[in-house]
């Protein structure tokens, strides 16, 4: 029997405000431990939280960019549990009256576009950081600099049906957060964190299986791998006649497995109640509309425009719009020379290929967009062949320089003079009597080899179509 996975993700995104969400301590990363703390974020008696306006603006922008309905009234609530990184004994979050609900984003899968619904977006504060003593050290060490940094939690509906879709969803979230400038959303830095709820069911069934919650996945790749493992695990449990237990499991990246962290009966009972230290957050329509008007062209809007304006595929548009900088780079190139499809290819295959290999992004590209445009123009005009184009691109990438100058300097201009090419064709015919005989006996496919020989002699500079034509004429003439 075939199974399908049902996955929902809970994502926390750190908002890039200067100060914390309920006090004026700095959110700057990397300070010495416990130097960005005050009575409020240390949870000292008598201190009172005051909401950061910028955090609200960022959260509303994020909610709008995720196509959510912003609730004009939302309420903060206390989520009660004990843990050393939580100085108050509760986390200020939102519960029954979240900031926003009912949104969606679109991801581009191999099977086409898919919409993943978003259940809610709410505001909350981050906890501190625990460092566990190594080896025999019987202590843990707590740094509360991060306690009180603003977060939004984005909860998806269980619309995700594969580990790959989960990765695409997260990458799309990151893209959106970066576009609108509310978070850098870097998973490795913990600015975007993800927990997953996953269950399996027989294909086509509409019943939900027992789900497990997965934690501790701190990169896109780990999310995908952890889900792949967990789905396989659940399937084998069921196939062996067992039952999946409701529990929280931790991804162990070293072993590549998920392990039980706590069973259902050990689950927390958070006893939420309205935060008496904060008055409700009431927003005006005007405020929400102001936030909407400050949003830039969003990734999906840009993607649709790229498809319409440049005639690109959904996939190509999705890739080129995966960051604002990359989309800008592409559009700069296209405005310098109008061949959108060819430029898309060079940017995606040659440029991104090289950049990705070096873990760089487009802002670190040694090649300027205008230079990519020029290269494509040189190929289109027949000054150089596509093959030589790759060579030129490589030189541009490694040594820098304008394509025209490189072509001139290295003598890479395409040979289009029939007389000149004929010389090489004659040479090759003289040097390859066996292949020529094969051709004359009807094995005309051998011409490919002969064309290759001519190209080799001209170091790839001959116009291949012309070489083909001349060779064919000569060989046919020899048949007589």
């Amino acid at each position, binding site marked *: 029997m075939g199974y399908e996975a049902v996955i929902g993700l809970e994502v926390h995104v750190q908002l890039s*405000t*200067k*100060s914390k969400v309920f*006090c*004026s*301590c*700095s959110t700057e990363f990397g300070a*010495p*431990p*416990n*130097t*960005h*703390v*005050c*009575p409020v974020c*240390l949870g*000292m008696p008598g201190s009172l939280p*005051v*909401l*950061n*306006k*910028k*955090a*609200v603006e960022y959260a509303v922008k994020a909610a709008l960019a995720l196509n959510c309905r912003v609730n004009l*009234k939302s*309420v903060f609530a206390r989520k*009660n*549990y*004990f*843990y*050393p990184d939580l100085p108050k004994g509760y986390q200020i979050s939102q519960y029954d*009256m979240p900031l926003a609900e009912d949104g969606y984003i679109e991801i581009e899968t191999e099977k086409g576009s898919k919409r993943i619904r978003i259940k809610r977006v709410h505001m909350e504060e981050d906890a501190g950081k*625990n*460092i*566990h*003593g190594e080896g025999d*050290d*019987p*202590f*843990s*060490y*707590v*740094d*509360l600099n991060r306690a009180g940094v603003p977060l939004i939690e984005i909860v998806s509906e269980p619309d995700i049906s594969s580990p790959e879709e989960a990765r695409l969803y997260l990458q799309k979230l990151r893209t959106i957060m970066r576009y609108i400038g509310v978070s850098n959303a870097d998973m490795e830095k913990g600015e975007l964190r993800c927990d997953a709820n996953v269950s399996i069911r027989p294909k086509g069934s509409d019943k939900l299986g027992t789900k497990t919650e997965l*934690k501790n996945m701190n990169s896109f790749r780990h999310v995908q791998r952890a889900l792949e493992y967990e789905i396989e695990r659940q399937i084998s449990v069921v196939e062996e006649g067992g039952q999946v237990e409701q529990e*929280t499991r*931790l991804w162990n990246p070293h072993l590549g497995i998920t392990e039980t*962290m*706590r069973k259902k009966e050990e689950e*927390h*009972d958070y*006893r939420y109640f*309205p935060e*008496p230290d*904060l*008055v*409700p*957050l*009431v*927003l005006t329509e005007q405020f929400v509309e102001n936030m909407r008007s400050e949003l830039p062209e969003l990734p999906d809007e840009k993607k649709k425009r790229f498809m319409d304006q440049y005639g690109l595929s959904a996939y190509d548009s999705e890739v080129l719009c995966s960051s604002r900088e990359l989309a800008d780079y592409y559009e700069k190139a296209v405005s310098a020379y109008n061949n959108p499809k060819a430029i898309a290819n060079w940017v995606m295959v040659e440029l991104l290929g090289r950049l990705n290999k070096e873990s760089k992004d487009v802002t670190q590209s040694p090649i300027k967009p205008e230079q990519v445009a020029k290269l494509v123009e040189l190929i289109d005009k027949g000054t150089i062949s596509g093959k030589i184009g790759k060579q030129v691109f490589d030189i541009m990438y490694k040594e820098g320089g304008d394509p025209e100058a490189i072509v001139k300097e290295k003598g890479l201009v395409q040979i289009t003079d029939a007389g000149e090419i004929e010389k090489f064709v004659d040479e090759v015919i003289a040097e390859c009597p066996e292949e020529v005989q094969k051709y004359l006996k009807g094995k005309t496919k051998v011409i490919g080899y002969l064309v290759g020989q001519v190209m080799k002699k001209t170091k790839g500079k001959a116009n291949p179509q012309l070489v083909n034509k001349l060779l064919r004429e000569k060989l046919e003439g020899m048949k007589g």
Partner: protein
Amino acid sequence: MAISREEVLYIAKLARLEFDREKVEEFTHQLGKILEYINKLSELDISDVEPTYHVLDMVSVMREDVVGQSLPQEEALSNAPDSKDGFFRVPKIIGGE
């Protein structure tokens, strides 16, 4: 009784509180009384009443995103029973949150 002994023990556990047998009996009785009294409210029809999330007649009190003064590390740690190298030091935490 409006609350069972098991529920009292459960709440005590969540609050990290420990009581002897007698105290548990006493609290079960007292909490039950309180809950019974509060339950009087459910006799009222409040279907048209908006829930009171806050007793103050204020909303949306906010501050600008400006960094202010934090405490010196020494002072931040001064109330802690134990600290080391600028960190609060606590017994080793096992098994996540």
